[in-house]
């Protein structure tokens, strides 16, 4: 099951850790103080990088949403029915992305 990622602007402090972890999907545009998803992950590597960025986002402001063909399922223990931090979910067997540009 793939996921869509979304930055909650009110929670983001623009620290750029997510764009360091997933440079192919997240960025802080010049003049902006918050991160944004400029491309949803299209490969397992990108999805893994976005998961890591969400799991370790210091404010919890990068959320993952399950994209099921039929419905949007709630995530565990976040209090938010459709949008949630990726939590501890870790797709196995995927090589993590390098942070170096």
């Amino acid at each position, binding site marked *: 099951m793939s996921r869509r990622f979304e930055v909650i602007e009110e929670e983001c*402090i623009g620290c*750029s*850790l997510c764009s360091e*972890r997933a440079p192919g999907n997240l960025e802080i545009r010049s003049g902006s103080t918050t991160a944004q998803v400029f491309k949803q992950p299209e490969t397992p590597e990108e999805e893994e990088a976005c998961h890591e960025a969400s799991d*370790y986002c*210091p*404010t919890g402001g990068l959320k993952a949403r399950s994209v099921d063909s039929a419905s949007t399922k709630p995530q565990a223990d976040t209090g938010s029915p459709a949008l949630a*931090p990726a939590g501890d979910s870790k797709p196995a067997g995927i090589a993590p992305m390098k*942070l170096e540009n």
Partner: protein
Amino acid sequence: MSFETIDTSVQALWRFDYDSNIKQLRDLYEVAKKEQWNAALDVPWDIPTDAAVVGDMSAPNVEPYDFVKALTKDKQIEFAKRRSAHLLSNFLHGEQGAMMICGQLVEVVPDMDGKLYAATQVIDEARHVEVFARYIKRLDRVYPLMTGLKNLLNAVLQADMWQMKCIGMQVIAESIAMGSFKTMRAITHDEVFKKILELTSQDEARHVSYGLIYMKDAIPKMNEPDRDRLEDFAFAAMTMLATTPQMEGGKRVDPFEQIYLELGIDPARANSEIISRMADPEFVKAQPNPFRDYAYPQLERVGLITDRTRAKYREVGLAA
């Protein structure tokens, strides 16, 4: 010269295998090396600070109290400036505590990746001490360390498990700092202070991320009694700072009394107004609370809020 000592005891741990074993920590170490800045050069110290635009860091989103409205405009600015200096003094002391605790983390954490990253954080904290000490002089003076914060920092310095040091500093204290800096950035219009908060916030974000990465890895590996001790330590650390009244010599003290007296404010009137507003649960709920809004959710994310402890946080109003 003003100083205090406490005895601490840590078990330093050598690692003789230097390969990375927690990749996310090694990645964070790489980011930390790239993001270093210089407190002397990267803050626009040549811009003067106009006291009128600094703002009152101690009172976010608060309609001014009557005892403040009764002051002249100049005195209102002076009051805001001094209260801000008081709050920032405690961040300054906190940064020094963080610098010492991170030095301990370098010694005690069991992984090379954890040690390497913690070493970068020591210099981050040194920069924070430098910038806050320098900026506070623009406002007023350095005020003493509040008892609750001192108790928390000393508890973390003296903790006998490395996971307690990591939770107390990286997850709780750093989350509070990160949340508070965000609030302060929204309040102040002083360019110099804004830049300081922008730079320090980026560092704080890494510090929190370190805690999340390391604790999500370490907590599931702990045995139940140690994990219970860690959960209890986290709760004690949160309440030490958030809900324990400021005490000195067994007597409750008002941290702002000195400022009130210097500006001709009656402390009894000020306190009565503040207590009356704080008695309104809606008012309390509407105020930013970094413990409830930032630290508690992080404890949830690392799995330290359990059926055993959740109700205790609710009881003291710290559950998000």
